[in-house]
């Protein structure tokens, strides 16, 4: 039964990952952009040692981390309200409302946000934000973080909601019987139980943000993330160097997943 899916996993998924790593070692003819058949570690050296590229990695990680924090900050109160305070009927409606954005296209949402954030020129034009509150963050990293947080929010919300749902009422009652206030209950009872759920949600928000390059193009102005340089180099066309660049997010995600595994994130997926 498992044979076919496992075979697919090994050949297509791990196989292509392996090829990706191998292709990072090819040398290209500089003029024609074709492989010369020689092997080289130059590509790897370039992406690891150049300061501009290292800064780009740090910036991408910072964006992904900011998106994760923002998603979490919004998801916690929302999930708490939906799972604990809302009436049964309201709860169903809210769950549907939270999942609804997942059913519309990525680009549709990205361009919708773009219409909201459009800075326009001095005194004229601009998007919804400018016409309503007279200000917009403009196109840049702030807009990228806002847009990505909007796009990936459901992925954080659902595990957090599921985690909260599982906490029995008796546990919260016990906490208040022992004299803990709402804040103390949240800090000492709910939060520790939620750690694996948050970790699971953060894997989605972090990894999806780290690899994103389309949102950056739509609302990022002149901003660049790791995905943009990979696309740029791939089209240069220099596939070996592009492959070398992908080793960065590859390594970052391996570390991230290892940390999350320690937080027992995978028990909640």
């Amino acid at each position, binding site marked *: 039964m498992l044979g076919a899916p496992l075979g697919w996993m090994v050949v297509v998924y791990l196989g292509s990952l392996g090829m990706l790593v191998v292709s990072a070692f090819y040398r290209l003819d500089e003029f024609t952009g074709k492989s010369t058949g020689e092997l080289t570690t130059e590509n790897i050296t370039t992406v690891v040692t150049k300061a501009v590229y290292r800064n780009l990695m740090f910036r991408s990680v910072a964006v992904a981390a900011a998106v994760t924090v923002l998603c979490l900050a919004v998801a916690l109160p929302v999930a708490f309200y939906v799972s604990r305070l809302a009436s049964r009927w309201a709860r169903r409606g809210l769950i549907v409302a939270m999942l609804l954005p997942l059913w519309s296209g990525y680009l549709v949402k990205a361009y919708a946000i773009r219409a909201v954030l459009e800075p*326009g020129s001095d005194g004229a034009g601009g998007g919804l934000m400018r016409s309503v509150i007279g200000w917009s963050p403009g*196109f840049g990293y702030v807009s990228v973080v806002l847009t990505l947080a909007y796009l990936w929010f459901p992925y954080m919300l659902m595990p957090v909601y599921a985690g909260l749902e599982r906490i029995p009422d008796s546990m919260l009652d016990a906490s208040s019987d022992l004299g803990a206030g709402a804040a103390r209950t949240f800090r000492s009872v709910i939060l520790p139980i939620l750690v694996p759920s948050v970790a699971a949600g953060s894997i989605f928000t972090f990894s999806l943000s780290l690899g994103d390059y389309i949102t950056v193009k739509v609302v990022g102005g002149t901003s660049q993330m790791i995905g943009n340089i990979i696309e740029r180099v791939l089209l240069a066309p220099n596939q070996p160097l592009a492959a070398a660049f992908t080793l960065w997010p590859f390594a970052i995600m391996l570390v991230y997943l290892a940390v999350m595994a320690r937080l027992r994130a995978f028990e909640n997926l």
Partner: protein
Amino acid sequence: MKTRARIVAVAALMTAMLGACGGSDSTSDSGASDTTVAAGMTELGAGEGAVNLIAWAGYVENGSTDPKVDWVTGFEKETGCKVNVKIGNTSDEMVELMQSGEYDGVSASGDASLRLIAGGDVSPVNTDLIPNYADVYAGLKDRQWNSKDGVSYGVPHGRGANVMAYDTTTGTPTSIKDMFDPASKWAGKISVYDAPIYIADAAIYLMATQPELGITNPYALDQTQFDAAIAALKAQKPMVGQYWSLYTDQQAALEKGTVTLGTSWQVIVNLASANNKNIAATKATDGATGWSDTWMISSKAKHPNCMYMWMNHIISPEANAAVAEWFGEAPSNAKACALTADKNHCTTYHSDDEEYFKDVWYWTTPTTECLDGRTDTECVPFSEWVNAWNELRA
């Protein structure tokens, strides 16, 4: 048949989890020229029913952009070759697409054509099979960017200069200094073409402002000159509001006022001014980069007959006039001038005015051997231009 290691790009799962990269596949053979498909063509056979093209935006219009702009439908009816087009946003992208071997032909600028010829991705063209070739301006035939050792590698499409697009309410730019000078009143609202070849624009700026560097050709830069160009681009960076490669991105930014001055193509200005009548274009007085494009046939073309028919069609007086007028460039076919809707089109775009094109620097591929004829020094090759541009943008 030579075996070829095919490196397939990463599956979708991978794309979501790790650095997302565009799907593509490229062959990694040693680039040996395989020109058997079209070079051996001595006579034209029947059409294969389809032709797959890579083209600049605005070069292959079937009426879907504007119902009145259509030089494809007639061709399809006449030849039975269904035209499928993939827009290439930069020359580098076109080279990448051509290497896939999935396309029959490309409208290549000079910075792509030489690399395609060297890489064996395109075949020589037997111009005897293209009747309209006879009417092409002699000044455009057998040039360094469309032929090699006297063998023609394509048919000239047309040429023009990259313009400066601007919003007339913000003033009138005249010089390329308006794009680079930190004191420019457009600072912060400048739109720059996002490709390594744009380094040549910085070189033109230096030709105008720092003659002591001795740049005589913006594509022939020795290390000192190249470093100065990169320094100019770094200084320009804080003034840039947008780096564009997708023409619709620049069009939208111009229309909405997100940017008010930028390197552009006439066709973008035409499209933007239809929605915002304040958008206009001008050619910088200090000279400009430009293009002289060539339709080339892939060495792996699956529809060579249809591609030959297309090459004949696109330089026919009717189609060449239509595309020249739509894109805003000089046609390559002398007879096209009689067929443009605007009878002054060929005069406006200087189609036969070699003097005008003297300070238009057609996109070409920089090589270690200096293109300006200097032999006492080495020039910075295009691969270094690409690296420098990647670093600048990162």
